């Protein structure tokens, strides 16, 4: 079988670095943020040197994460534009969940589920950034009223929780769909993986090398 295996480049080393920097920052944000969100998780502040330091570093990590996410957005947005096939894919998502992708339209570089993850992450990131700035009292305390800050903390908490759920979905999909992770660690995927999950993209890639 090894001789039959074809290899396709999926992510450049720049894209991989960008993705993993973002992943590390997001995990730090989730841990420090959850620590300040729920009393039962306050012990997580210990990972950041205690309560005050967790409070101090969280927004700065946020700023770095926003910059890194902007990099990902610029790299990937054009592959995530929604098409007619995506709506059809979404309507038949139950077949995908049941490991049968033959009943959904062939996917390009990203399928509709991945596109949804991309746009949810983008929207929630913008919400987290704006609400986060509004509640960053040590830097911008005087720019917002107390009532605006109250709204900001609710928006921040709700968007953060939704984003964590989106990230869990993203991570699970990578584990479930075998052969995916090497795309983001080594930059390449096998032709079989592409044929099985992103056939339209495979055809495009093959067309390029012609």
């Amino acid at each position, binding site marked *: 079988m090894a001789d039959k295996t074809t290899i396709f480049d999926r992510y450049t080393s720049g894209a991989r670095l960008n993705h993993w920097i973002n992943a590390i920052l997001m995990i730090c944000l989730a841990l420090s943020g959850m620590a300040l*969100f729920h009393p039962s998780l306050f012990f997580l502040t210990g990972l950041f040197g205690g309560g005050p330091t967790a409070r101090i570093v969280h927004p700065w990590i946020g700023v770095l994460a926003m910059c890194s996410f902007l990099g990902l957005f610029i790299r990937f947005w054009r592959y995530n534009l929604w098409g007619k096939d995506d709506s059809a894919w979404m309507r038949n998502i139950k077949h995908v969940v049941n490991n049968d992708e033959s009943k959904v339209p062939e996917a390009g570089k990203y399928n509709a589920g991945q596109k949804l993850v991309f746009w949810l992450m983008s929207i929630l990131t913008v919400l987290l950034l704006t609400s986060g700035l509004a509640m960053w009292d040590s830097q911008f305390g005087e720019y917002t009223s107390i009532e605006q800050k109250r709204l900001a903390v609710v928006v921040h908490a709700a968007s953060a929780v939704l984003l964590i759920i989106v990230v869990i979905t993203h991570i699970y999909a990578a584990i479930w769909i075998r052969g995916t992770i090497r795309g983001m660690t080594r930059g390449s995927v*096998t032709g*079989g993986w592409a044929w099985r999950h992103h056939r339209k993209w495979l055809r495009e890639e093959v067309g390029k090398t012609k």
Partner: protein
Amino acid sequence: MSSLQSLDLRRRSATTTPPPGQREAVEVAKLIDVSRCIGCKACQAACLEWNDLREEVGINVGVYDNPHDLTENTWTLMRFTEIDVDGRFEWLIRKDGCMHCDDPGCLKACPAPGAIVQYKNGIVDFISENCIGCGYCVKGCPFNIPRISKKDSKAYKCTLCSDRVAVGQAPACAKVCPTQAISFGTKKDMIAWADKRIADLKERGYKSAGLYDPPGVGGTHVMYVLKHVDRPEIYAGLPKDPKISPLVDLWKGITKPLALAGVGLAALVGFFHYVTHGPNEVQEEDEEAAAKTRRNSAE
């Protein structure tokens, strides 16, 4: 900052289990009779002195309020309002500061375990060494009282002299007030005393005199006797019906368990999907099909 024992706690911030609370205590209150206040600011000076704090020398902008607002050093502040009431000039002077709510919004909003406590006697106290400086108490407070220090990023406010009360003394401001506009005792006694004062004021023609002990926050352990209790907002914006903001309730209420359940459920759904449907693996025929596609294209 306080010297009260942990046995005396009724509530402790960011703590899901009950605090040590075996001992019972009598609820205390400070009663500020605004009708007797002459605006001398002795209470302000006594507060700075007892708590060993210094306020910056400020700038006069043509009003008596000095400083212009509560700060991390000024935990109590005389607020002066000049107003026409029924065609008659009145000078309203309100001693502003923490109201020591029975249902404290600051404590509910605080994410740091034990940074804000409420003692059995009703006093709400900031335990500064546990404070992480996030400013959530500011968002939780319906009276806009806590201030975050620029020096150490900790939150500060009136302690109701919990250290003095613990050893049977009245708060410094009550002790020093030359007209006895500030009294201190059990909440029951203070309400009884207020009733006498209100009866007296009504006799003198102040028909809307009354006690300010707002039920929206469960009552307060700092109460006012106001000549115009029907319009508290004329006293430099004292809220008419203070409540913990519904946004704060939402944030600190249902959102917390819902969020943990949501995150936990997402992880469980993933895990259960894996054990029922298994991984989606690339088959040999997929590789063959891909190789064929490439060959066809090369030809």
